[in-house]
């Protein structure tokens, strides 16, 4: 990891450590009362953190004041989803439909993803900052050492083009084999 990646990593570690310390005990209590195990609690909480990060943290500053409540609410949704019992309590701004989108990549995507994680690492980090972390343009520009926001945008599209070309290339390969 280079220096900037490490810094980003440390920030994320700080965030997840704080959320874990603040909110995991409540989730653990909830799950243990329903005869769930510690492992189940950890698994559900990890999913809840991913969902929270994607659906709430990266999208809005405002709702961060009720993080504990949000995380517990997501854990409850996941728990009842697993056990198949109904759960009608609504959490403001969090549609239960959002929670479905936690699936793993398709097998055909896995290979390409593994390739991109190594050979395409730098580009994937840039694209992740834009499209997944939703970081402001200026922060991305600083973090990656671009000469300015314009340059950052150009890099974004260059990287997107590279990834897209890789997708097209691999699709052609699959098509060849399928004949």
């Amino acid at each position, binding site marked *: 990891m280079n220096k900037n990646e490490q810094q980003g*990593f440390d920030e*994320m*570690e700080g965030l*997840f*450590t704080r959320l*874990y*310390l603040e909110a*995991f*005990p409540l989730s*653990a*209590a909830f799950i*243990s*009362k329903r005869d769930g*195990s*510690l492992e189940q609690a*950890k698994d559900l909480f*990890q999913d809840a*953190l*991913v969902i929270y*990060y*994607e659906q709430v943290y990266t999208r809005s500053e405002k709702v961060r004041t009720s993080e504990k409540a949000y995380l517990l609410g997501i854990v409850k949704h996941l728990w009842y989803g697993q056990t198949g019992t109904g759960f009608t309590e609504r959490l403001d701004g969090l549609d239960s439909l959002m929670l479905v989108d936690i699936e*793993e*990549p398709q097998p055909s*995507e896995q290979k*390409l*993803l593994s390739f*991109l*994680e190594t050979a395409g690492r730098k580009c*994937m980090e840039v*694209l*992740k900052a834009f*499209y*997944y*972390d939703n970081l402001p343009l200026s922060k991305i520009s600083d973090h990656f050492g671009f000469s300015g926001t314009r340059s950052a945008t*150009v890099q974004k*599209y*260059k990287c*997107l*083009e590279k*990834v*897209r*070309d890789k*997708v*097209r290339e691999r*699709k052609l390969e699959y098509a060849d084999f399928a004949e």
Partner: protein
Amino acid sequence: MRTSLNEIEHIEKHLLGELPGEESLLVEVKMSLNESLAEKVASQEVAYALVKQYGRRRVRQQIANVERKLFETSGYMSFRQRVFKFFG
């Protein structure tokens, strides 16, 4: 930006619904007439999905690291004790 990058930006706006109605329609028409363009659009959609999966994997790695830290290293004893109490 060079032409190909402008095109990628244009496709992105189309996919995000940020183009005015008639421009978006024009993209759709061009796609039906031009297989290469249609394929670019489809591949670009896959590219976004891959970025999301990549981001998710990185986040899961970070969460797993934090979990290991909290449950396996010294310094978080009171947190662990609090949690273990629930599971008897």
